């Protein structure tokens, strides 16, 4: 158990280094003098701009050798000192706190919705492979997987907000506004997890211990409930780790689409506005979110499958 937690911690460190290094290069590669740009942004371009830029250079330590600057930059990232947004001027950490909450709600409800849909469909298709439900579920999964999240979101928006008028197309505040973006992500996630569940349930249903539970006269519900579900859940849960990629990427897309004020929305805006401290902050948080989901999946797998514990 300690092994994979250490691995996840290392991954978190890697995320910080990659994001930090890319943003460091970004800051210095963008055209123009960084100190001059920041000074102009802070005090306005006037006659004393060169003097202000010189002060800024000293303040930010831009006159020192690159390696020293880089080490300090990484140190700042690790101490979670992310600087100030170049656009709003407020500390990045402060903005991230608000946005992270919104994004977490979205990601969590999307995941919960997908778990209500995907594994249930998968269970019924897996118990009768090749049956009507299975074939219908396969067709659904293939189609939903081929639709990119932003197209799916637009379709849902057009159907539920424009045609039926049931839900607001964008905004933030109540669960009503969150339903459409969460549903967009959940359908994509469920399309994947339903097939994984189906295969794993079909494999369990063929296993000798499953047949034995039937032969000894247990009712069907007990056979599936006690002997099927937990075993079938192992691949589904470990597959959630792969789905974390989809979830984090989907959050960026869906938040931008539905104007949902989360981290992904902020990241896209920061990229458009070239607000590098914000790019760094948001990318870092989303990357760490990805690592945290992966770590939770590790823990769940560990709890579900005692064989992993014995091996470790």
């Amino acid at each position, binding site marked *: 158990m300690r092994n994979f937690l250490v691995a996840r911690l290392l*991954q978190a460190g*890697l*995320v910080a280094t*990659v*994001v930090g290094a*890319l*943003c460091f290069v*970004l800051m210095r*590669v*963008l055209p123009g003098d960084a100190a001059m740009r920041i000074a102009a942004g802070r005090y306005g371009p006037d006659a004393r701009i060169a003097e202000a830029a010189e002060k800024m250079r000293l303040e930010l330590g831009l006159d020192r050798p690159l390696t020293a600057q880089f080490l300090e930059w990484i140190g700042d990232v690790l101490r979670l000192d992310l600087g100030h947004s170049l656009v709003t001027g407020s500390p990045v950490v402060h903005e991230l706190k608000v946005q992270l909450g919104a994004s977490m709600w979205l990601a969590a409800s999307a995941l919960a919705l997908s778990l209500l849909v995907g594994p249930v469909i998968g269970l019924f298709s897996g118990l009768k492979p090749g049956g009507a439900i299975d074939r219908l*579920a*396969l067709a659904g*999964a*293939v*189609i939903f*997987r*081929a*639709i*990119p*999240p*932003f*197209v799916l979101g*637009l*379709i849902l928006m*057009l159907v539920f907000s*424009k045609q039926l008028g049931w839900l607001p197309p964008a905004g933030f505040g109540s669960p009503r506004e969150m339903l459409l973006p969460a549903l967009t992500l959940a359908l994509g996630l469920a399309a*994947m997890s339903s*097939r*994984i569940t*189906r*295969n794993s349930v079909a494999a369990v249903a063929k296993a000798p211990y499953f047949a034995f539970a039937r032969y000894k006269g247990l009712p069907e519900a007990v056979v599936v409930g006690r002997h099927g579900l937990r075993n079938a859940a192992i691949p589904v849960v470990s*597959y959630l780790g*792969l*789905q*974390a*990629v*989809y979830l*984090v*990427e989907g959050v*960026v*897309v869906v938040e*931008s*689409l539905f104007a949902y004020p989360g981290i992904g929305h902020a*990241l*896209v805006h*920061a*990229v*458009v506005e*070239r607000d*590098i401290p914000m*790019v760094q902050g948001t*990318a870092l948080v*989303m*990357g760490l979110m*990805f*690592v945290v989901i992966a770590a939770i999946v590790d823990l769940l797998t560990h709890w579900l499958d005692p064989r992993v514990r014995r091996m470790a």
Partner: protein
Amino acid sequence: MSSIGDLSFARPKGRLPAGRMFGAGLLVLLGCFAIIGPMLIPADPAAQDFSASLAPIGGDFLLGADHYGRSLLARLAHGARLSFGLAFLTMLAAALPGVLLGLAAAWRGGWTERFLELSATIVLALPGLMLVLLLLAFAPGNYAPLFLGLSLTLWVEFYRVTKATTKSVLAQPHIEAARMLGFGSCYILVNYILPVIAPMIATLSAFAMATAIIAVSTLSAISVGLQPPTPELGSMIVELLPYYAEAPVHVLLPAMLIVLLVLGLQLLAQGDHG
């Protein structure tokens, strides 16, 4: 970028399954549209004609015109060519280094392998789209960071699969026998390793192209990818969206085209397997 991970290596034997045939057929049709379309259709995808703004389907314009009166047929054909072309180039730029480095890692082992593993781990530490977004911050709206970012994330899958498979093949007794009979590395590579990895690389390539098509259109749709005058399918959808009430089919056409492209590639890659 997530679909690339979930494929099974169990290849169906014998006749191509129906799903795969359907995917291949779909791709041939779309490929013809993307390659021959821009040559046959005389209309310029950027030529504006405000008197024909939002022209209906079937009038002067075969598939109607958008809000600037640009021919949708021409824009769809050019958009399909752009998506296909960019996805193909990205796939090549990911597959070539991925396969070669995978072979090198499996063949040499030792420090070569350790170094390559580390690079792969670094790339995989972040979700792929985040890396592309970070690179796009250098130059929003340009082809170069988009192309570079996508191939940078996609090569890892090629590398991993090639390395793992090659390693397991190299450890088998018939390779040792071939070596002892005096056959060189080149012969072993061509006759024993390539036939095993080729079908896997083909599957991965189709997945990588589907991933690239989704990523390019998504990034344009959230306005950090290619910028509007370019006939790009994702940005076409977003551009036409405000006019949905007047011309709903116009919005759905590019969306359909993206979905069909991705569907064709995914079906070709995995056939009937869920």
